[in-house]
């Protein structure tokens, strides 16, 4: 066996360039798989750890004041694992001169002993001294304030803003990053709430329970009974889904990553088979000699297998190590998108080992067929191997009109059918991946743009409480630049969980925007995908609601035909789901203005206004003036966003998917280009003798270049065509995963002409470079050398 090892190593040295390319192809595949699976392992572990460490509340009950006695009694209930108290106050904060953003101000019972919904210190003081706040780290860019700065905060009901020092930064793993939603989070003590004139009482009883929704529901029922028995109000009850706000995004992104990494591995295996096949083709005569001197097919196969294993094993190690680094970088980036902080980036060793095994053995398995074929070659044929033979009957019927040199190029392209197919498939896969990535990228951004563009307004404002429609419209229309103010009904409402889940019928999973577009104003950016949009004229008893798919994903019981109870403060209204719409938006539900009046018990009021602006007017300056007008009238906005800000926020939410798609495109370009250039170079090199013969017959350098380039162009053209065809199902799949699983929208199939142009240009440039290098070398060499080439 030692001689076999020596032979394998000598072969490696003799075919250094091809062996290096083979190594590179396998290393890239290993890198891609390691990056995807490593990032997945890190992210799944860290998301779970971070979320668990925060001990998110399974049940939140709103009452008048959560005191120590109540907390103690609840903590003694069966199934309760932790109890704490909190308060949320929606405020506005000035982030630049007269530019305001929403700030969610949380009152925390005791920073030294946070038992549920934990917040961690990042820097600065802990706890924040009275009169100061801790700012959530992901909101620093929104608030434009660091530790030591001062926040100017406007509180509902107060005329003048109040100063709140930033004592430090905190991390709240349960929040989506503030920069994504363009809002801030800050944490203060009850004493600071008191200083702000909000009172020191905390109204949220936060309860951590044993795992499972049933346990949470049982605890929710007991707490409500306890409060009722004590004569305390139950303002609202929420049972949390206990998952990260962006968990769906992450799941879709990780699924895409794995599928695409598997494709990369397949690509590298195809490339390995192709390259190894061409390496073995050069050794046909040697195989014949080895057999003639007694080498059995099995022994010869073992030599080649050793050679392939040496290359694939070492390449997989280096690729996997590189992949670990990429996985860490990607996990860090994705962690930022998910508001993870201080995450451990170590990739589990079992994942590294498994990926290394896959990256070694998948390409190795792909080389088995060329190895078996090479080791079984007939001795006589092997020894007299004159190089590449062609003994298929020519199909010249359609080619007679072409010049002989063009016929030669066409047939040479197809000469090695196996290699041709492998080259076409590997390059086409790369192209299809690039096109799919670009197509879905375009679909995503296009869907956002379309959703934003379909809105006639340039700015939307929502209020903490509905106000008189007439007054709102009149005030808004006085703002310079406003052409028209469109009042919308808008409140935050919950939907009672199904009766079989809770006996009380007042428990909700969360509160969502309940919106009522004015009659006659079509809600253009939402498409009805099930049921119908309610009309004001139809006779009905229950309120009719239409839910969007984002809400349906969170509250699956709200399917068309379902009966539910809309809970708004102490009011409850029976409702029937009559339709499902698809849109790019947060989880929301829609009703008619008439039904909205029934839900809130008031008429002639609106919770939101959308402003249509005069052409050329800056939405930002309108927002600034509007904010002042609203403050003057005592109307408190909880959401004020221009169309541009809305678009940016939507794109930020997709950022992680967009980055995955772009990374995929980059990997596709790398592997595809590598595949095409290597196989084309091999094709040219393997026919140097024929090039020499042509040169001896009088072929000029230009004619030879044309011959070789035409041959490369044939392969490239077929690859492009196959890539275009493959990109259709691949785009559909990636679009389906990104849309349905991550964003809950159906992304329209979009073709990116830019990606096609980029791929055609890249492929053409690559073909020219891949062919011209060896072609120039062949053209420059004396005919004698070319003809002697084996």
């Amino acid at each position: 066996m030692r001689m076999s090892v020596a032979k394998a190593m000598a072969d490696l040295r003799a075919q250094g360039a091809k062996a290096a390319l083979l190594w590179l192809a396998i290393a890239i595949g290993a890198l891609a798989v390691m990056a995807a699976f490593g990032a997945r392992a890190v992210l799944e572990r860290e998301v779970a750890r971070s979320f668990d460490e925060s001990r998110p509340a399974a049940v939140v009950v709103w009452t008048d004041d959560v005191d120590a006695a109540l907390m103690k009694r609840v903590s003694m209930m069966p199934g309760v694992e932790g109890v704490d108290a909190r308060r949320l106050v929606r405020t506005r904060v000035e982030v630049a001169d007269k530019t305001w953003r929403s700030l969610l101000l949380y009152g925390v019972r005791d920073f030294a002993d946070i038992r549920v919904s934990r917040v961690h210190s990042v820097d600065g003081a802990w706890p924040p001294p009275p009169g100061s706040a801790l700012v959530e780290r992901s909101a620093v860019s929104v608030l434009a304030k660091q530790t030591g700065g001062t926040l100017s905060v406007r509180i509902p009901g107060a005329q003048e803003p109040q100063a709140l020092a930033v004592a430090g930064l905190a991390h709240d793993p349960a929040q989506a990053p503030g920069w994504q939603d363009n809002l801030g989070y800050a944490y203060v003590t009850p004493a600071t709430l008191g200083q702000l004139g909000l009172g020191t009482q905390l109204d949220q009883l936060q309860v951590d329970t044993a795992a499972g929704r049933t346990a949470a529901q049982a605890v929710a029922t007991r707490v409500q009974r306890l409060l009722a028995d004590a004569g305390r109000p139950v303002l609202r009850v929420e049972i949390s889904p206990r998952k990260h706000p962006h968990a769906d995004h992450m799941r879709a992104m990780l699924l895409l990553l794995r599928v695409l990494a598997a494709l990369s591995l397949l690509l590298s295996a195809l490339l390995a088979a192709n390259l190894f096949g061409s390496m073995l083709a050069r050794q046909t005569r040697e195989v014949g000699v080895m057999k003639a001197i007694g080498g059995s097919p099995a022994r010869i196969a073992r030599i080649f297998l050793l050679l392939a294993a040496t290359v694939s094993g070492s390449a997989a190690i280096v690729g996997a190590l590189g992949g670990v680094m990429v996985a860490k970088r990607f996990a860090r980036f994705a962690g930022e998108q998910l508001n993870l902080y201080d995450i451990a980036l170590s990739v589990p060793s079992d994942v590294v080992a498994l990926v290394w095994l896959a990256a070694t053995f998948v390409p190795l398995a792909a080389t088995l067929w060329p190895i078996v074929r090479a080791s079984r070659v007939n001795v006589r044929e092997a020894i007299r191997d004159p190089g590449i033979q062609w003994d298929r009957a020519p199909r010249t019927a359609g080619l007679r009109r072409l010049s002989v040199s063009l016929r030669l190029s066409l047939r040479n392209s197809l000469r090695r059918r196996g290699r041709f197919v492998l080259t076409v498939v590997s390059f086409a896969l790369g192209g299809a991946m690039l096109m799919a990535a670009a197509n879905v990228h375009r679909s995503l951004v296009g869907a956002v743009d379309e959703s934003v563009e379909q809105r006639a307004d340039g700015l939307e404002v929502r209020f903490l409480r509905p106000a008189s429609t007439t007054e709102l419209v009149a005030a808004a229309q006085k703002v310079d630049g406003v052409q028209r103010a469109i009042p919308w009904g808008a409140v935050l409402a919950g939907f009672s969980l199904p009766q079989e889940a809770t006996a009380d019928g007042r428990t909700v999973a969360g509160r969502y925007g309940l919106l009522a577009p004015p009659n006659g104003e079509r809600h253009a950016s939402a498409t009805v995908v099930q049921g119908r949009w309610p009309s004001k004229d139809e006779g009905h008893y229950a309120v009719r609601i239409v839910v969007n798919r984002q809400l349906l994903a969170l509250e699956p019981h709200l399917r068309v035909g379902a009966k539910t109870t809309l809970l708004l403060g102490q009011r409850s209204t029976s409702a029937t789901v009559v339709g499902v719409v698809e849109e790019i938006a947060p989880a929301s539900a829609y009703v008619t203005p008439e039904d909205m009046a029934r839900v809130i018990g008031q008429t002639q009021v609106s919770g939101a206004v959308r402003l249509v602006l005069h052409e050329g007017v800056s939405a930002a300056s309108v927002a600034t003036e509007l904010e002042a007008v609203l403050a003057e009238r005592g109307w408190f906005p909880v959401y004020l966003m221009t169309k541009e800000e809305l678009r940016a926020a939507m794109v930020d939410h997709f950022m992680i998917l967009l980055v995955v798609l772009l990374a995929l495109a980059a990997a596709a370009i790398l592997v595809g280009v590598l595949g095409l250039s290597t196989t084309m170079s091999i094709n040219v090199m393997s026919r140097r003798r024929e090039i020499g013969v042509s040169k001896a017959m009088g072929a000029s350098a230009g004619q030879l270049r044309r011959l070789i380039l035409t041959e490369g162009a044939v392969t490239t053209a077929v690859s492009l065509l196959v890539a275009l065809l493959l990109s259709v199902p691949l785009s559909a799949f990636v679009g389906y995963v990104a849309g349905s699983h991550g964003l809950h929208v159906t992304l329209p199939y979009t073709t990116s002409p830019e990606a096609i142009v980029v791929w055609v240009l890249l492929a053409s440039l690559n073909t020219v470079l891949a062919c011209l290098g060896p072609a120039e070398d062949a053209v420059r060499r004396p005919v004698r050398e070319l003809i002697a080439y084996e």
Partner: protein
Amino acid sequence: MGSSAISFEQVSHVYRGRQGLAFEALRSVTFDVPVGGSTAIWGRSGSGKSTLLNLVAGLDRATSGTVRVAGEELGALSETALTQWRGRNVGIVFQFFQLLPTLTVRENLLLPMEFVNAVPKSERHDRVDQLLDVVQIRDQGDKLPAHLSGGQQQRAAVARALVNQPEIVIADEPTGNLDASSAQAVLELFGALRAQGVTLVVVTHDEQVAARADRILELRDGQLVDMRESTS
């Protein structure tokens, strides 16, 4: 026989290996081949006969000395000019036929005409038919080389060497891979070429093949050791 078709004057050729090792394959060789004559370059393996043939065909360049073929001093020609000159003036018959495997016999003959463009397009197919008749394989014209016998492939190679009506035909061991009857047929074909006034240079280590030429140049260790008229 008139003027010289080929003239070598003090021609030497040195091969240099990768590590700078030099091997002198031809040493100060001087000879002339008259127009229309047939010359055999004879010698044992390693004597330098293939090197000499490569220099005659312009497939390689002399290290020193002057090589003049078909009226051109080859050392003075650029690579492009050399290629054009070769296509118009020299037909080469390779030892292993070297037909392009993906082209039919007919296409193998058409390709050099396309490269050199010396024969008008309208006449090319007729010329191919004519040459296939001469080498007696017209019925094999639409077959791929792999479907032909060795003798038929060599005839096709001879026909290909003639398509551009060269002044000089050079053949490297033209019978080396043929059975006796095929070899005889090819040699008769060469006899016919001579009759048409084509200058023929054949490299061979076969004394019987060499004996058919007008003159025999014998090489040994890169030196021209004998130059004699054939007695046959």
